[in-house]
């Protein structure tokens, strides 16, 4: 068990280190305001990342989540514009997301087509549907949405937890329970570890894969709804490339892309670290456009190497402390 917690501990250590560094360097950085922003601004990526965690744990990958977020936003905005209640729209879209996810899972497993490609197709399809629905961005004007975006849970200091942040925390709790305390969760780990063996051990592999992508579809819709609430609008180009952010969040959180290894909580820190990197750059504010990109890449690199170093030294320490 201990060996499995190591990557996540390393991730958290690097997060704290990076945060402390920012605090030393910039005024106003060590405030609950910045921390609250971090949770709010990255909530949708993290929610998408939670679904992605299941997919990656099962040995798959999902490239469609960015398009899914855009699609949910524009579809919801259009529905609300036609008089739907946002929650009703979400409910309908949730069903759609689950069905689409399940369909992808079924194609992946039944026809043995690689997840990368199936979800890439879904990525094109959903983004294309965004354009078909509307080329313009569509505002969502509804009392419920306004109430949601005005809702604040004050933190000590100048910060607060916003609606998106709370949705994210609730989604996290749900994901942790599903991944670590249900048979379905255990089966996801088994399938990702070795699908052929899992089948021989009696795991219903087809059902698990379909379930994973359906669940991911639900998280995708939730991320899309959070994003739509967060921006009070739908925009056909919204969240393009977010799938890579979500994948990066999962992997930085210590989950292996080969499947079977990782913890849900890691994804949250993976997402926060990416947000933190951006916040540091914005606080600095003196970089040229190109340096911004280079520094994001560079910090990503530094972080990953740091994480490896921490893991290596902890393993070595453990080795000398407790042989055998």
């Amino acid at each position, binding site marked *: 068990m201990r060996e499995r917690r190591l990557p996540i501990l390393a991730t958290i250590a690097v997060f704290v280190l990076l945060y402390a560094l920012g605090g030393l360097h*910039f*005024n*106003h950085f060590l*405030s609950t*305001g*910045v921390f609250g*922003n971090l949770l*709010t*601004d990255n909530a*949708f*990526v993290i929610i998408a990342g939670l679904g992605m965690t299941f997919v990656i744990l099962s040995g798959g990958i999902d490239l469609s989540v960015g398009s899914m977020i855009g699609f949910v936003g524009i579809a919801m905005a259009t529905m609300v514009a036609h008089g739907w209640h946002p929650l009703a729209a979400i409910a309908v879209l949730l069903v759609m997301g689950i069905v689409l996810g399940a369909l992808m899972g079924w194609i992946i497993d039944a026809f043995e087509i690689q997840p990368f490609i199936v979800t890439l197709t879904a990525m094109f399809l959903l983004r294309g549907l*965004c*354009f078909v629905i509307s*080329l*313009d*961005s*569509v*505002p969502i004007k509804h009392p419920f949405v*306004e109430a949601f*975006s*005005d809702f604040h849970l004050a933190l000590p200091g100048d910060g607060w937890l916003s609606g998106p942040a709370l949705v994210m925390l609730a989604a996290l709790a749900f994901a942790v329970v599903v991944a670590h305390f249900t048979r379905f969760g255990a089966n996801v780990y088994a399938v990702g570890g070795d699908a052929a063996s899992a089948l021989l051990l009696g795991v219903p592999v087809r059902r698990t894969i379909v379930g994973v992508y359906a669940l991911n579809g639900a998280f995708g819709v939730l991320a899309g709804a959070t*994003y739509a609430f*967060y*921006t*009070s*609008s*739908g*925009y*056909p*180009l*919204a*969240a*393009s*490339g*977010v799938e890579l952010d979500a994948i990066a969040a999962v992997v930085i959180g210590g989950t292996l892309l080969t499947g079977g290894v990782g913890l849900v909580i890691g994804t949250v820190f993976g997402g926060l670290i990416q*947000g933190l990197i*951006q*916040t540091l*750059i*914005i*606080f600095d*504010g*003196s*970089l*040229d*456009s*190109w340096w*911004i*990109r280079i520094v994001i890449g560079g910090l990503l690199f530094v972080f990953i190497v740091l994480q490896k170093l921490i893991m290596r030294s902890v393993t070595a320490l453990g080795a000398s402390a407790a042989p055998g």
Partner: protein
Amino acid sequence: LTIGFSQVGSEGDWRPAFSKDMKDEAAKRNIDLKYSDAQGKEENQLKAVRSFIAQKVDAIIIAPVVVTGWDAVLKEAKAAKIPVFLADRDVDSDPSLFVTRISADFNLEGRLAGAWLAQASKGKCDVVELQGTVGSAPALQRKKGFESVTALFPDIKIVKSQSGDFTTAGGKEVAESFIKATNGFKGICAVYAHNDNMQLGAIQAMKEAGLKPGKDVLLVSVDGVPDMFRLLAAGEANASVELKSDIGKNIYDVVEAYLKGKTDFPKWVLIPSDLHTQADAAAELAKRGLK
């Protein structure tokens, strides 16, 4: 004085020039400019604006990626008593949440291009359109503005329209396929491109297909980047609506005036757009010290 500036990104020729002007002008005026490049993503802009608020800057300038989605953070800025100014693109929020917008009018650019074409073709023309990125505000507005004029002329028709993503390569590829589909631009009288970069690509495609750009086909586009002026001067393009990039001074003037206590701004400080043709291209090049 500390000002946060959230820029869309650094795509094309026009925007980097705009960013550079903003920085140079800030340095001239001793403004501590916090510059953030959103790489074309709305979520990055929202992060930037929230961070500016947390940093307690004196004013925030936003060149928005999209028109929607700004209510929440603008309210936060207002609560923190930080004035917000818009540059370039618009937002559809409650106007009381920002001070003013300082920019040109995309729709007007489209109308200018349309008007020029109507006049140059005497109201009779089959047009091929190279659209900008699908769904982006300039693409939508330039299309709408252009069509609002051409709709007045029954014999002006857009016969083909595809997206070239605002890039030279995209413009070239789309133009090539149009040339093929129309058998060498037979019957086509004009190409309208939503920006100069795509038009540059289209011009290359025409040359490679043995056509004479600017002569066989009329070419009109938007932006007025240096390369387009050169082509105009060389007679290989016909018209371009200039979108000025050296507008830093206009923007900072407004911001500084506001911070000094002036409040009665119009909600839109319009920066005029001019259309340039082969006639004045050489003079314009000389004026800008370009060759």
